[in-house]
């Protein structure tokens, strides 16, 4: 084989992947930027055309729901990620211990990871429905938790925790398994107790895994549309509408692609800003 042909091999191997990513990820992002400057509504094609910054002006100055959805998005991501990190870390530490039945316990506690957002909604609607749900066993037989402004937030947060904690736990367990056992032995020889071993051996070694898991999950929870779309539809009174859910509703229900694209651009900017900020603050990947 000639050296030129040999050098072409890796490029041939990656070419289908590169082509797919270019056509269906990179190009769409570019076209969102283009649409955001257009009037484009599938239900009113006669009004399509260049709009300049009109979509953005409407979004920033006239659309209260945009600002409200931003506020809820922040609340949603912070609550989910904080709780998922705490519970996921605890769960990872527990199933990293050796005990009889550990394999089975891992399979069971990780299993909601494989469940879709829509199925999660189906399951939790059964749990939350007044009269026939499980709340009657907790002394709240007639509370419609999903329709009540006071209870809807904790209800959706718990539902997403059910599905979200396993993934955090899986990522952190993978990180835990990368810590050499000798470090714990050495720390124990030096007289470090359980708490100090956790603080000085486990946490520093888990740092990268925690940073990456937190970042990935934040992005995914930010983008989590399936669950809220089906569980609350963004209600009651739009109080559980995240920005991506708002975009999806615009795209699916009202087919207002121009304005939806402007909202999408806002989402991209926010994601990019916080991802960069977070990576910088956590000094990800740097040697200590």
């Amino acid at each position: 084989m000639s050296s030129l042909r040999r050098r072409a091999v890796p490029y041939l191997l990656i070419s289908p992947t590169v082509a797919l990513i270019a056509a269906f990820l990179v190009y769409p992002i570019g076209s969102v930027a283009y649409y955001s400057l257009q009037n484009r509504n599938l239900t009113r094609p006669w009004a399509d055309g260049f709009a300049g910054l009109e979509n953005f002006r409407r979004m920033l100055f006239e659309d209260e729901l945009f600002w409200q959805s931003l506020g809820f998005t922040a609340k949603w991501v912070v609550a989910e990620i904080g709780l998922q990190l705490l519970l996921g870390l605890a769960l990872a530490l527990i199933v990293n211990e050796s005990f009889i039945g550990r394999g089975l316990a891992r399979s069971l506690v990780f299993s909601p990871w494989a469940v879709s957002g829509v199925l999660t909604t189906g399951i939790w609607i059964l749990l939350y429905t007044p009269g026939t749900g499980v709340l009657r066993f907790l002394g709240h037989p007639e509370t419609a938790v999903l329709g009540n402004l006071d209870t809807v937030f904790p209800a959706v947060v718990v539902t997403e925790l059910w599905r979200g904690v396993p993934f955090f736990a899986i990522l952190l367990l993978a990180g835990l398994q990368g810590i050499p056992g000798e470090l714990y032995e050495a720390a124990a020889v030096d007289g470090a107790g359980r708490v100090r071993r956790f603080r000085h051996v486990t946490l520093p070694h888990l740092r990268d895994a925690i940073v990456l898991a937190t970042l990935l999950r934040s992005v995914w929870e930010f983008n989590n549309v399936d669950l809220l779309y089906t569980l609350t539809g963004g209600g009651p009174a739009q109080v559980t509408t995240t920005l991506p859910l708002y975009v999806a509703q615009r795209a699916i229900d009202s087919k207002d692609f121009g304005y939806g694209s402007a909202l999408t651009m806002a989402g991209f900017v926010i994601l990019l800003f916080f991802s960069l900020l977070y990576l910088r603050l956590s000094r990800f990947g740097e040697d200590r």
Partner: protein
Amino acid sequence: MSTDVVIRAGRAHASGDRSHRRPRPKRDPGRVLRLYVPLGLYLVFTLVPFYWMLVFAVRPAGSTTPVPWPITFEHFETVWNDIGYAVFFRNSVIVGVWSLLATTVLAVMGGYALSRYRFRGRTLFMVVLLCTQFIPGAMLLIPLFTIFKTLGLINNLGSLIVADTVFNLPLSVILMSGFISAVPFTVEEAAMVDGCTRLRAFLAVVLPQLRPGLIAVGSFAFIHTWNNFLFALMFVSRQDSFTIPVGLSYTIGEYSADFGALAAGGVVAAVPVVCVFAVVQRYLVHGISAGAVKG
């Protein structure tokens, strides 16, 4: 960055095995409080929802007993025959299997290139793959709809196969390159010295050892595709092209009084992923540490 993936993949395999050989724990009353009580509580939180769905699915309509007996399959007959889950299920299997095959083949190709070759643009390729993790599918609904409309793939399962494959691919390529790097290059070299071409050496020597990687990547792809809701909701509007999540979302909306049908539909949606999960979960932890945690 890239060699890191390689090294960690190997290490993850090694440590995954090592943990089985830990010494049996000593009896310690603190362990009950520290380990078994929280684990038990968490298991209740995890399993009660599944149990509740099963109860609704096999309980006659109108009954409210938490322990159903005798059980009935009437709800399954309703969803499968009357609501059309037989068709949704078939569509989901078609999309899931094609996406699995496409993702796995392309991931092996891309992963092999990343793992075995040093070429110009390799780092850029890695960075692009990692960056795609931050691109939300939900935010690309509008442009993707326009593209598929141009391609004539709206109301066609092909749009779902393509879109799901694209979103599965980046992580799959990274994962697969970790798994391929864990197979020593020397075995491949030996086969080539014996006169095999590189392709034959790969097929005969590397591929058999990649079984865990193929299972892990294939299962991730299948589960993600099976679960995908928004693409199916956006790109398909004819009922005979619905996939399971879309069908289920309509069951949630329209049959909200008929919880038996909702629960039975949920069980139908859950069974394939639960089966795949049972296979894949052994590879889950070190599969992820091979690729995702440390890219």
